[in-house]
C-alpha cells in the first residue's frame, strides 16, 4: 500500500507549482498588508491569512499534521488571543503614520534589505537540490512517524515544553490578575451609585428605531439624533462624542487613545464590576 502524498502524479506537479506561487503571493501581500495596516484589527486579519496560507504550504511540504495543528492551534488559539487582547486595548487604536524616532524607518528599511540580501546570499550558496521522493512519513504515515520520533528522540524537550507551558500560564495569570483592593461593592452601593450618577434609567439598546439592530448601529433619540450611548465603547472606536468634551475636542486626539475610555472625571480608578456603563476603566 503506497502511502504517498495526497497529491501525486504529473498533474499534481503543476498544481503544486501553481499552488506554491498563489500561496506565496497571498502570504507576502498579506504580510506586507499586516505591517502597513493602520488599524490593529486589520493586522490581525492579515496575519491570519498568512498563517492559513502557510498551513497549506505545510501540506504541500508533506507535513499534513502540522498543517492542521497550525490552523487549529496557532491561528485558532494564538491569533484569537491577540484579537481578545486587542478588544481590551481598544479595537479602534490605529497607529499614526508619522514616525517619532528620527531615521528609524530609513535604517529599518536598510537593515531589512541588508538582511534580505544576506540570507538570499546564503541560500544561493547552499546546495538545495530538488526534494527526495516522498515517502510514507510525509504522507498519511506522518502522524505515526511524528509520534514515534517525538516520544523517543525528543521526549526530554517534550517534557520541558510542558513545564514551559505551565509556567507561561501561571505567569500570565500572575501578571494580568489584580487583587481587589477595596470591599466588593454590594447591591445597595450599586443602587446608590446608579441613582447618584444622574442616569438611573438603562441606556437605550443599540439599533433602537434605527435601520437595523446591528451591535454597532447607534439608537435614534426622539428628536432623530443618534445616541452614542447606545453603542458599546469597545466598538464605537475613535468617533468621540462632542458631549464628552465640554471644552471642545482636544486637538491631535486622532492618536490611538480612544478618549472615550479615559475615565470621566471623578470616579476613582478603583476596580468596580463592569456596570452597564460599557468600557470598564481598566
Amino acid at each position, binding site marked *: 500500500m503506497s502511502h504517498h502524498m495526497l497529491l501525486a502524479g504529473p498533474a499534481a506537479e503543476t498544481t*503544486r*507549482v501553481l499552488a*506554491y506561487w498563489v500561496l506565496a503571493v497571498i502570504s*507576502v501581500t498579506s*504580510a*506586507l498588508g*499586516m*505591517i502597513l495596516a493602520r488599524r490593529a484589527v486589520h*493586522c490581525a486579519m492579515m*496575519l491570519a491569512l*498568512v498563517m492559513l496560507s502557510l498551513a497549506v*504550504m505545510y501540506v*504541500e*511540504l508533506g*507535513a499534513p499534521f*502540522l498543517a492542521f*495543528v497550525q490552523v487549529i*492551534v496557532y491561528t485558532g*488559539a*494564538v*491569533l484569537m*488571543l*491577540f484579537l481578545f*487582547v486587542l478588544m481590551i*486595548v481598544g479595537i479602534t*487604536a490605529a*497607529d*499614526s503614520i508619522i*514616525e*517619532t524616532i528620527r531615521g*528609524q524607518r530609513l*535604517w*529599518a*528599511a536598510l*537593515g*531589512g534589505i541588508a*538582511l*534580505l540580501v544576506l*540570507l538570499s546570499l546564503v541560500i544561493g550558496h547552499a546546495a*538545495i*537540490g*530538488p*526534494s*527526495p521522493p516522498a515517502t510514507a512519513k*510525509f504522507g498519511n504515515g*506522518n502522524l505515526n512517524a*511524528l509520534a514515534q*520520533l*517525538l516520544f523517543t528522540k525528543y521526549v526530554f524537550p517534550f517534557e520541558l*515544553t510542558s513545564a*514551559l*507551558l505551565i*509556567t*507561561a500560564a501561571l*505567569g*500570565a495569570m500572575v*501578571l*494580568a490578575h489584580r487583587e481587589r483592593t477595596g470591599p466588593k461593592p454590594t447591591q445597595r452601593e450599586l443602587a446608590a451609585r446608579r441613582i447618584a450618577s444622574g442616569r438611573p434609567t438603562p441606556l437605550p439598546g443599540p439599533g433602537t428605531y434605527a435601520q437595523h439592530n446591528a451591535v454597532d448601529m447607534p439608537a435614534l433619540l426622539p428628536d432623530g439624533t443618534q445616541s452614542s450611548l447606545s453603542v458599546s465603547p469597545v466598538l464605537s472606536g475613535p468617533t468621540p462624542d462632542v458631549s464628552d468634551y465640554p471644552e471642545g475636542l482636544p486637538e491631535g486626539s486622532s492618536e*490611538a487613545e480612544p478618549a472615550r475610555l*479615559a475615565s470621566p472625571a471623578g470616579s476613582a480608578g478603583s476596580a468596580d464590576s463592569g456596570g452597564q456603563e460599557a468600557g470598564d476603566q481598566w
Partner: protein
Amino acid sequence: MVSPAHFIALSVILFVIGAVGVLVRRNAIVVFMCVELMLNAANLAFVAFARMHNGLDGQLIAFFVMVVAAAEVVVGLAILTSIFRARRSASVDDANLMKY
C-alpha cells in the same frame, strides 16, 4: 518542480517583512504579531528543511516553536495588558523611562 528552496526563499521574505514590521510599528500588539510572523517564517523554513533532509526532525522542531510562540504570546500579552492598565497606552514608545 517546487523545490524546498522556493519555500526557504519565501520564509526569508516573510522573516524580513516581520523584522521590518517589528521596527516600524508602534502599537505593541502589532509588534507581537510581526514577531509571530517571523516565527511562522521560521517554521516554514524548518518544514522545508525537513522535507529536504527527508526527516521529520524539522517538523517536530516546528511544533516546539509553536509551543514557545504560544507561551511567549501568553506572557507578552499579559505584560501588555498590565502596562496598558497602568499607562493607558499600548504604544511601544511610551514606555521609555529606562533611558539615560
